[in-house]
């Protein structure tokens, strides 16, 4: 039986090849065919998750909540020292210096990334801004969010910190950061579905040792991950509880 692997649609475009390498590496470790399915949209991916078409997923923390609490997935690993943080940025020449300078009517460019959007909205609260008094335009990636700012179609943009740092220097130089989140305990995780439970010990052992040999290390490098760190039940539950408090 072929196993199905997928990745949260917020993956960096530079890492697409890396996920195919990871897929091949997984097949070797498990001695089982693995199929990688990439999605453009969070919604489409969620439909397939609910239809039980996925065995393994590198998920964003927001979806991890649904996967664990509703679909019986188990988080087994996370990338070492890679928390998901959110940045709110604006044009370099904008008149505001902090979030509290923002006024009702502010035009926001965002993505469909649920974590970054949720955290971005939370970081607007100190200015009394919420969905009732701002306008929100969804863009398909962080480069397009930045372009909306530079073209003056939006006043501020929500970025995954790593996505912001991946923007070219040319673009970054025309922008400034108003606030960066510093949460540190919210991150992507690798989760395994209920159908693959018996393979968790083997998979976890191989993942945690992956950085120790050249082959594994080069796959990790192509994913921008230093090494995997183990996730246990309580660590996962803690992260999910925290996210629960942030969901309106």
């Amino acid at each position, binding site marked *: 039986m072929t196993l199905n692997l997928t990745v949260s649609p917020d993956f960096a475009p530079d890492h697409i090849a890396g996920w195919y390498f990871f897929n091949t590496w997984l097949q070797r470790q498990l001695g089982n065919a693995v199929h990688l399915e990439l999605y453009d949209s969070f919604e489409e991916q969620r439909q397939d998750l609910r239809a039980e078409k996925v065995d393994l997923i590198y998920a964003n923390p927001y979806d991890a909540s649904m996967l664990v609490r509703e679909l019986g997935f188990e988080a087994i690993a996370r990338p070492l020292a890679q928390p998901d943080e959110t940045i709110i940025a604006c044009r370099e020449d904008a008149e505001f210096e902090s979030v509290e300078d923002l006024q009702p009517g502010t035009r926001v460019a965002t993505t469909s990334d649920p974590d970054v959007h949720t955290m971005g909205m939370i970081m607007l609260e100190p200015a009394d801004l919420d969905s009732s008094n701002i306008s929100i335009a969804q863009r398909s990636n962080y480069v397009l969010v930045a372009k909306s700012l530079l073209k003056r179609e939006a006043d501020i943009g929500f970025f995954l910190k790593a996505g912001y740092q991946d923007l070219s220097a040319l673009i970054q130089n025309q922008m400034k950061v108003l606030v960066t989140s510093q*949460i540190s305990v919210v991150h992507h995780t690798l989760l395994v579905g209920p159908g693959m439970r018996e393979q968790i010990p083997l998979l976890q052992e191989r993942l945690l040792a992956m950085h120790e040999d050249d082959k594994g290390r080069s796959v990790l490098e192509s994913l921008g991950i230093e090494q995997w760190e183990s996730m246990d039940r309580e660590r996962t539950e803690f992260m999910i509880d925290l996210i629960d408090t942030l969901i309106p």
Partner: protein
Amino acid sequence: MEDQNNDDGRIVTITYYGGATREALIVDHEVPYPDGKLIVSRTDPKGFITHVNQAFVDMSGYSREELIGANHNILRHPDMPAVAFAGLWETLETGTKWHGYVKNLRKDGAFYWVKATVIPNIRDGEVVGYTSVRRKPSRSKIRESEELYETLK
């Protein structure tokens, strides 16, 4: 009840639900909430602290060692009406999320305002504790809360 007054603040007796009391230094100085941070703590089912993050340590002014095992009411500010916390515990007992604006007392007597959310931690159907996550409130919400709490004291 005010026992003593001087330029560096005053000593106030805080009376907790259940009757226990504590003498605390109160200074009329606000420490601003740090941008972009979340202040996180967890308690056992009785409200004794089991986990705090670094932002919690930094803002409260206590060390981690002083906080772990302490009753969460260590942060109770005398300007907070008892009814606000009665509402918190009633909401948690129904198994649901609680939101509110809270003025917290630091070890040095200064205060900080937070927008707090508290949820029960449910494992295998049992409440094993509570998690609270605080974020930065707006000035207008702080003003509204100050006015409201004044009427509830």
